[in-house]
């Protein structure tokens, strides 16, 4: 998907290159959207990795596909489909195990069932649409073309809501994630918090899906967070690192995507993969150094 006509050649004058890139309104919007999404995904992803809820996050990302496909079939905006399907799925995942009263052991079965059903719905919507569903690739693998001003505005408002919730529940959520029994004894409403967290996770997944596509959301939701946790065990620093890495991955991915012929989702995911490998390498080196210390009395 080459946007590159003659004007998008990389020169050695970086300032000129950046200025030239931002002459295109779609690139400005892509960077705005990417920045918003990276901040939200970096923060929520950190809690998701800490809470070992990657499977729930994975499913909430995938249901973006039937959401967007259904929305396109009905002729409404794909973004609306992402939000509605992700939030509805979060409610199902949160409520069903609770109603049955079996707690978390039941959760992954419910998540898996929901995921399979959602993907089947997505396939149905694509079939119902009849003919070539324009933008199916974008729904699955992401795009940075054609992000509208309105879409950026909604991304921004939803992100603000998510951040506000996180500001209020941040510390008790950390407590409940690490040590649910003690947190509950201290009066932290752990049940309510896990529902609230699934909802903001759904919103974060719906936002990220609009940049990376439903299949590649994890590049932003899991990788920066997992890399940050490999690099530091301090919660505040970890959150900041996670956001920093998410921004780095997104910005680099957009720039490389702009100058190359290959889709942006591929670049974001590949860069994320590289970042993850580097972070795990650093953790391994760190733990080796640590063990070396312990051997010497």
């Amino acid at each position: 998907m080459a946007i590159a006509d003659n004007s998008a050649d990389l020169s050695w004058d970086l300032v000129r290159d950046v200025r030239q890139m931002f002459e295109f309104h779609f690139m400005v919007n892509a960077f705005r959207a990417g920045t918003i999404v990276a901040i939200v995904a970096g923060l929520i992803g950190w809690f998701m990795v800490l809470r070992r809820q990657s499977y729930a996050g994975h499913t909430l990302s995938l249901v973006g596909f039937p959401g967007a496909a259904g929305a396109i079939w009905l002729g409404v905006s794909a973004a609306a489909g992402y939000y509605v399907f992700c939030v509805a799925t979060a409610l199902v995942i949160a409520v069903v195990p609770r109603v049955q009263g079996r707690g978390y052991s039941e959760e992954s079965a419910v998540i898996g069932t929901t995921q399979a059903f959602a993907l089947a719905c997505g396939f149905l919507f694509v079939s119902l649409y009849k003919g070539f569903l324009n933008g199916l690739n974008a729904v699955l693998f992401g795009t940075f073309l054609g992000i509208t001003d309105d879409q950026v505005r909604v991304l921004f408002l939803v992100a603000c809501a998510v951040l506000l919730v996180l500001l209020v529940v941040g510390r008790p959520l950390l407590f409940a994630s690490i040590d649910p029994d003690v947190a509950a004894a201290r009066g932290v409403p752990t049940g309510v918090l896990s529902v609230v967290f699934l909802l903001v996770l759904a919103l974060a997944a719906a936002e990220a899906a609009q940049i990376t596509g439903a299949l590649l959301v994890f590049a932003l939701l899991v990788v920066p967070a997992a890399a940050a946790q490999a690099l530091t065990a301090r919660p505040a620093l970890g959150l900041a690192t996670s956001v920093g890495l998410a921004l780095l991955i997104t910005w680099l991915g957009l720039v490389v995507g702009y100058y190359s012929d290959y889709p942006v989702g591929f670049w974001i995911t590949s860069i994320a993969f590289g970042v993850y490998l580097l972070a795990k390498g650093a953790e391994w080196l760190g733990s080796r150094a640590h063990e070396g210390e312990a051997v010497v009395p």
Partner: protein
Amino acid sequence: MNAISARGTAVQLGDRTIWRAIDLEIERGEFVAILGPNGVGKSTLLKAILGLLPLSAGELRVLGGPPGHANHQIGYLPQRRSFDPSLRVRGSDIVRLGLDGDRWGVPVPGLRRTRARQRAERVRALIDFVGANEYAHRPIGRCSGGEQQRLLIAQALARQPSLLLLDEPLDSLDLANQASVAALISRIARDAGITVLIVAHDVNPILPYVDRVVYIAGGGAVTGRPSEVITSATLSRLYGTAIEVLHASDGRLVVVGQPEAPTYHPDLYRGVDAHGHR
């Protein structure tokens, strides 16, 4: 006013009666061990004291009020959780959560510096108190069982509780660690005048420190000094079967013939007959 007083207290989980009638008076500052075989509801008693489980009968007063009303004055250490080895959060963060983990909001760097400094100071003092200086900066998942347990005790002590509920804190520690953690707990109880309720599978590591024991079996409980309760006569009466308590030469007590609860107490499972068949 007693720290805990229970009269005819009963708890039911689903259609299973955990115990029918517990009577208990625990004075402030006492060091009390809760003993009994697996499955008699020792942990359930702690949860009832915290107000996490509803009572099905009787009365329970904790620190002068109904269960749950004074949880900010209670330090709680649930039954052994070993943290996931890959959990990347420092031991000192775990202790810090005991101090302010239940407060809404997030700490904003640079705001309220005095309070932030005070809390950091308090966390340092707690870590120092339990002797965890060397490993408190490490990710908790990489600490040994004994190290984790010390950090969790520091967490439970964070808000200067007047009551400490410890659920099998010595379980799965090696013998040396059992002795030193038991000594640490008794030092806390003595120095700060904290009432300590400690659930134990084996009374021996804490026997030198215990003021009283509560022995739960058969849906009820017997309370008294260790020398009164842990005897062949008392335990045989409690279980309704012959139990022998042996005194080893090093002062350790060995209870012989102690049945596991479900086999001998068919009323624990409705619909189970005396032979354990449904």
